[in-house]
């Protein structure tokens, strides 16, 4: 059994909280798309917001990342990941809306 990080006690609580939050954040977009109670653009915004919160939940509860300045490496990795995601997601949105405008 590997030693828990930072010498702290590993409990099952954060994992359960994370799993429940992740499930709720997945159920909301599915429900919205299935039932269509809102206008499409509003649904898009909710899906995007739940996706971003989902990322934060995974980082916080499963990967145990926090904002303490204890680990520079983690921060660098996180910043790099954020930049790459910005390029990929931002680029995709740019390309897709552009194509949509011209072809649809």
């Amino acid at each position, binding site marked *: 059994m590997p030693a828990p990080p930072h010498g702290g006690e590993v409990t099952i609580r954060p994992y359960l909280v994370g799993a429940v939050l992740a499930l709720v954040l997945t159920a909301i977009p599915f429900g919205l798309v299935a039932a269509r109670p809102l206008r499409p653009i509003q649904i898009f915004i909710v899906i995007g917001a739940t996706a971003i919160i989902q990322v934060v939940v995974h980082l916080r509860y499963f990967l145990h990342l926090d904002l303490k300045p204890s680990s520079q490496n983690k921060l660098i990795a996180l910043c790099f990941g954020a930049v790459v995601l910005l390029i990929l997601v931002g680029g*995709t949105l740019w390309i897709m809306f552009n194509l949509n405008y011209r072809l649809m």
Partner: protein
Amino acid sequence: MLGKLTIDALPFYSDIAMGGALITVVGALGVVALITWLGQWRYLWTEWLTSLNHKKIGIMYVTLALIMLVRGFIDAMMMRTQQAVSLNLQGYLPPAHFDQIFTSHATIMMFFVAMPFLVGLFNFVVPQQIGARDVAFPFMNSVSLWLTASGAALVVVSLVIGKFSAAGWSAYPPYSEAQFSPGVGVDYWIWAILISGVGSILTGINFLVTIVKRRAPGMRLMMMPLFTWTALCTSILIVFAFPALTVAAALLGLDRYLGMHFFTNADGGNVMNYVNLFWIWGHPEIYILLLPAFGIYSEVVATFSGKQLFGHKSLVYATAVITALSLSIWLHHFFTMGASPDVNAFFGRVAPLIAVPTCVMIFDWLFTMYRGRVQLSVPMLFMLGFIVTFVIGGMTGVLLAAAPDDVMRGTTFLTAHFHNIMIPGVLFGYFAGYQYWFPKAFGFQLEERWGRRAFWAWIVGFYLAFLPLYILGFMGMPQRLDRYYVAAWQPYLIVAEGGALLILCGIIFFAIQLAVSIRDRAALAISTGDPWNGRTLEWATTAPPAAYNFAVVPHVHGIDAWWAVKQAGKAGYRPARFHDIIMPGDSSAGIVLGGMSFVFAFAMIWQIWWLAAVGGLGMFSAVLWQTFDDNAERRIPASEVEAIEERRSIAPAFASRAPM
């Protein structure tokens, strides 16, 4: 009970497919019979298949890659032969069969030759190069191997049971949707990609952590050898790029299985987003394959020029710049899809920028050779052949990166450019690495003469096979034609067929080289672990290395750590006493998990739901079993370490207490 699986799944539709299926079945039975006859099942199981030793996993990866290389090359040979004879004629392959062959050729070469070859070299070399005893997650390493093997097995099985995808290796919708490809072919492609893709992502995570966390004390990032640097950057690319492919393939699967509409034309789907997602993975993938080859060339050129690598720092920065750029230029794969001039201009400007760091690398290698004592060994020949040939591929790449001349897209010009990058850039690099590190893995060298013959057959064969395709591209020949009606094309296609035959000779020469080397292994044996007078740490271990690599973990003080030790005359240093070493034990959970993933995917493809449940439960149980295994580690006592070191011709390299 058996879902869509009936007797009609056997390849009665074509004699050639039936022949291929028979050869596959007979070959598999032959291997099983041979191992049984030799009575080696127990040895194979305990020493190799369940091993968590990173060097053995590496060797198994490379073996998988070489076997699949032969399979993928047979596909290539069949296509070349078809095109050489099919002017105004049907040729010998029916169109539906030809379509499967170009799909399986590319799928196999990308996912089951290039990827396992590079991961195998990572596994064998990287831990030794950074002075580590193992990778960060040994069990996950075994899981990666068996998931990759399971994906490869799916592609091979599709030759015997059912048909493979005919939708091209990129499986673009709408053709790959259930409406237009109702058979199991695309499902085989999806599951092979999903399963091996998970294996690749795990490998990326594993090597990222290994390189960041497991370096020998004193080895700062800028002191890492270039192959390790490229392994680090490749791992980062794998972690960011492969999920896009997994998502694209999974969504396509949801479209096909559950009637969803992610990529359909109707009901709110968007075909173009598949293309976008595919190339978010696809472009970095080229650099995932290329960067490690660049790393190998850097090691080879320094060793065989007898000089320190020129511009180590600039090579590191060039690697990092390529890594960052490669994530941001994917659109140049679909200029023709109809984006506005703004979008195309942006990506059309960024794409050729990648030539700048690549040129920095080429010049660094040339300057390393300048005034060095260049030995023309087999790895060095592949390196030189690469420099000359790759520059042509790079320039045609700049041509294709310019948005306005996109008339060449979809012609054989693109095929020629792609192979011009993949064969000299990637494959020659891995071959150089295979020849370079073979003596480290097995304790004897590969025979030189057959190696040289193989090199000449490969390079001349490459030029003959692909330069005609550039010309045909200018003449307007589309790629993937099973027949054509332009008589002027045929002479070029016949020349290309000749080139493919020469490459066949190259593969045969490699096989002869291996056979001759095994026969003469006593004469080719190396007396130390350092046959090439190498510079980096992997040459400090014995050949073949002990399970723990380093009896005493080295301390590093600069780049070319092993060279510095040799210069200081400390190469024969032996510590006064040894310590116990803790290594991972063996585990059969990895191969069970891989096997069960095969069962699961096969059942999903043929929609045999009860079997899919069995496979899924099997995968879950294998992981659970490993999680509760408390004896996952093995302690090698100090006395045993000492005995092993005593028997070796060369003592452990250098230690923290060594007087430096």
